[in-house]
Structure formats: C-alpha cells, structure tokens
C-alpha cells in the first residue's frame, strides 16, 4: 500500500463566473512507504495545492487522494500525517514546549506519554535550551525545527514538508537535511516540496516536477541525473605523462575526452568547512 496515492487528482479555482483556473490537472502520484519523495516546481506550479488536497484543506474538483489507503477527505487519515507548513505558522505567544504540547493534545496525547515525547522531540530538533522561550523570540531556523517537532509529535508514518529550509541559513539547512535522513532511517515516508534542488538531489529517492498543475517529469533521482552516454574517473596524484597515456587510451578505445580539469567542491561544502574552521580558531565576541 502506498503512503500517498492520488488518482486523477484535479483542482480548479473559480476566478469569475465563467472563468476557472487550473491549480492541479489529473495528478497521479504514488509515494511508496519509507521513501523520500521530492515534489519540485516553480511558484504556482501546484505543489501547495497538492499538499492541501492531501491534507483535506481543499476538496478536489475531480479525482481522489489516499493516505495509506484511506481517503484524504476523512479526518482519521490525518492520524498518519505530520505536516510542516512553508514559513512556520504557530502561535507566537506559546513557548516551544507549549507548542508541541498543544499539538500533542490535539492528537489525543496526555500525561507522561506526552511529556516524554516533548523531551524526546526537543532533543531531536536541538531546542532543549530554548524550550521555555516564546516563539516570538525564535529565529526562522528554530521555528522550522519546532515545526518539525510538532509534525512528529503523534509519531506519524508520513511527513509532509513544505519548503522546510526556506529562509534558514546553510547550517540550519544541513541540520534539517540530516533530520530528514534520520526520519527515513526511522522508517518514515517523507514528501518534500523544495526549491533547493541540490538538497533535494542529496536526500530524495525519487522526484516529480510539476508545472502548470501537471506532472512533467518523474523518476528515481539517480536515473534522471545519470548521463548514460558518458563515464567519468576522478584520480589523485596522477602525473602529466600518465594523464597523456589515459587520453591516448580513451582515443584508442574509440572514446572522446569531453572534459578534464580539477573537480570543484560545492559552495555549501566550502561554507561549512570555513565556518567549522573559524569555530575552532575564533572565540565568539573576542
């Protein structure tokens, strides 16, 4: 049974008496259990509409959505879903701990069971030190983390993350990425909507690209990105005469050297290395 399944799921928005705009057009999506699925697309492509239909916040114009086999229109289906909205919208007057407790209670949790879960989640998202601070004083990254904690409070099998790293600095972004990887290891299924393609590439098993409400491309990340007509070696300590021999061997074998040079690191890796190095040598405020 798929964690999410949509059958010809469509949503039209009426903009005037005669005119309707297509928000989502016959989407057939199947997210398998314990998979990290990336839903990509430009703004207005239908990603948020898809999430709202899966969460029952919108009613479909046509088609159906199912969560672990149950119609998404049924409130009981949400027992299995945790949702982190884009830009976390929570009560600013509650503390981090109170926020998780509020959502836990909504899920029917009480007493020691809930209190233990709050401790566990605050530790998981690294907010133990800020548990009594009101959300009004939280940074964007901290809000995302408390949002993730509330999404996980009732131990759902499916987690929907809408732009979980939007506005978060690279370190916070890496932490959230690591958390998603951890969720997969815990056996959860994750549907991730994001604009950060590098991150999606790193953590998603499969991706789907939406545009104008239609699924225009879908598949395994490895399959979609692999250039099957090319092959690459990365070597270390190879002298110039040895490189010349490699070029010669490629030509002899009927191939062609398309590119050579020093491989580049990513800006993200460079940023993280620099920050870690600075943390070792520079004392804050000195």
């Amino acid at each position, binding site marked *: 049974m798929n964690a999410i399944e949509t059958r010809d799921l469509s949503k039209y928005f009426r903009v005037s008496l005669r005119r309707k705009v297509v928000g989502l057009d016959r989407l057939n999506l199947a997210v398998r259990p314990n998979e990290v699925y990336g839903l990509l697309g430009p703004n207005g492509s239908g990603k948020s509409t898809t999430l709202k239909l899966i969460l029952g*916040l919108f*009613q479909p114009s046509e088609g159906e959505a199912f969560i672990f086999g149950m119609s998404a229109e049924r409130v009981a289906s949400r027992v*299995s879903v945790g949702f982190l909205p884009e830009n976390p*919208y929570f009560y600013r007057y509650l503390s981090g701990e109170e926020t998780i407790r509020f959502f836990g209670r*909504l899920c029917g949790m009480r007493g020691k069971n809930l209190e233990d879960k709050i401790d566990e989640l605050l530790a998981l998202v690294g907010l133990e030190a800020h548990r009594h601070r009101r959300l009004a004083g939280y940074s964007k990254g901290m809000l995302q983390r408390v949002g993730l904690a*509330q999404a996980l409070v009732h131990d759902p099998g499916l987690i929907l993350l809408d732009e979980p790293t939007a506005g978060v600095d690279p370190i916070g972004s890496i932490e959230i990425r690591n958390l998603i990887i951890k969720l997969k290891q815990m056996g959860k299924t994750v549907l991730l909507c994001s604009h950060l393609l590098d991150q999606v590439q790193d953590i998603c098993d499969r991706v789907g690209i939406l545009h104008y409400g239609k699924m225009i491309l879908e598949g395994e990340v490895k399959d979609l990105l692999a250039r099957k007509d090319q092959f690459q070696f990365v070597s270390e300590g190879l002298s110039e005469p040895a490189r010349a021999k490699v070029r010669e061997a490629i030509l002899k074998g009927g191939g062609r050297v398309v590119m050579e040079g020093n491989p580049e690191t990513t800006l993200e890796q460079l940023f993280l290395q620099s920050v870690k190095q600075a943390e070792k040598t520079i004392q804050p405020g000195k």
Partner: protein
Amino acid sequence: MQTHPLRIYFSFGRLWTIARNTMTEIIRQKFFYILVIFAVVVLVSSRYFSQFSMQDLDQVKFVKDFGLAAIKIFGTLIAIVGAAQLLHLELENRTIYPILAKPVFRGEFLLGKYLGMIALLLLTTLMMSAIFGGVLFYTEHQLLATAGRGEMLPVGVGYQMATPEVVQQIIKQTRDPNLLKAIALIYFQFVIVSSIGLLIATFATSVIFNVIATVMIYLCGHLESTARQAWLGDPSPVTKFMLLIITFFVPDLSAFDIVDSVVLGQAVPLNLVIRTIGYGIFYSAIVLGVAWCIFQEKEI
C-alpha cells in the same frame, strides 16, 4: 506500515485544548487588557460619577444602573471584537493549517474557539460583577455610616431621614438577588453576540466588516421588539414579511434587558429569566450550526 483508525469521533479533549488556547490567545491581546483595565476603572469610579448626577440623588440606584451598564458595554465590546478576530487571525496568520492538518474536525475547531471565547467572557463578567458587588457593598457601608451619624440620606428622590425603614430599604436595594438575574441575562447577550460574530467570521474577509455587521445586528436586536409593536398594527403584507424576516434572523435582545426593572427594585420572575436564557442558548446553537455548515465547506 502505518495503520490508522478507521474512524475517529468528536472529542471533548480536543475541544477543551482549542478552547483553552483561545482563552490564552485573547488574554494576551492588547485590546483585551485595555478593555478590562478600563472596565475596572469605570466600575470602581461609579460612586465618584454619582456626584455629577443631577436627576438622581439615590446613590444606590445610580451605582446599580452605572455598574450594570458598564458590565454590559465592556462585555459586549470584548464579545464583538474578540469574536470578529477569532477566525480571521487564524486564517491571516495561517495558524489554522497545522491544526487542521492534525486529526481535528473542523466543527471541533470552530466550537472550541467559541467555547474559549464564551468561557473568557464568563470569567470577565464574574470579575466585573465582583468589582461591582464590592462598590455596592462600599456604597451601602458609607450610607449606613451616614445613617449612624444621624445625618440625612440621599435615597429615593431626595434626602430622607435615616429611619429604620429607609435603612432597610438601602440594604434591600444593595443586596437585591435580582441583580444576579440581570447579570446572568447580560452574560447570555454576550453568548449570542459571540455566536453571531463567529458566524460572520466564517464568510467575512475583514475584521472591520465583521465588527460593523455584528454591531448592526446587535442594534437591530435591541430595536426588534419596538419595531414589532409598531408594525403589528400595519396590515401591509410587505411590513408583515419584513417583520417575519427580522424576527427570524435577528435575536430579540431586548428580552435580555431587565436592568431597568432591577434598578427600580422590581422583582423579575425566575421563570422568565430561565426561559430567556433558554432562548439565548437555542438561538446561539442555531447560529453555530449554520456557522459549522459554512466552515465545513470553506477552502482554507
């Protein structure tokens, strides 16, 4: 693989969680603080204001009239503004998304918000009533002290000698159990006004529109019985139809106004009070039912 229950049922636990959070939310808003502080100041200073009353020398009557009016005005303001913001803030700040993404029925959310609102109004009414009671007690204490000194007392339509009958009259007026009936009916006006505000919030797009529409209905509700009496003699079918529409849609809030009778020391039958409260609960339940139906279909 995740398994979920085939069905979940309406939960009072979830209702209470949302209601309690709504109370916290309103309490932490500035308008609430300001209104409550202002109400306390007005109630406490009612004896001071009695000095400026040209027509009425009867201090007990003035304090009762002034106090009950203050409770009603401030409670109504909290009910109208609070109910107008209840849903609007949730939608504008999008705090409703993560809540409805949990296994929560929309009806539970709406009813929880409403219960939080009327529970807070109950607390506010009790608090204002306690202060009002304190001011009445103080007024009685002052008047009895004046009587003890053998001085003239400002009761009735002028100053009177402090005879045992006059002292008894003062005690009867300040400890009148009908005051509790008047406060109960004032509270149930808040209950009705909140339900109307919440109903309008399910389709209104701005707080201002909501406040204005609720105030209009509130005023119509107070004028309804006057209009009914004036129009009943009119044989025109248009007038009768108008009357029918207004009677059906607008609550008869004048039925809840027993303040004048209580201030004048007239007895109000308990039976009438219970019937009026029953009408208030019934009307609010119908309004909430309609709000529920609209909110159930609302795309968030």
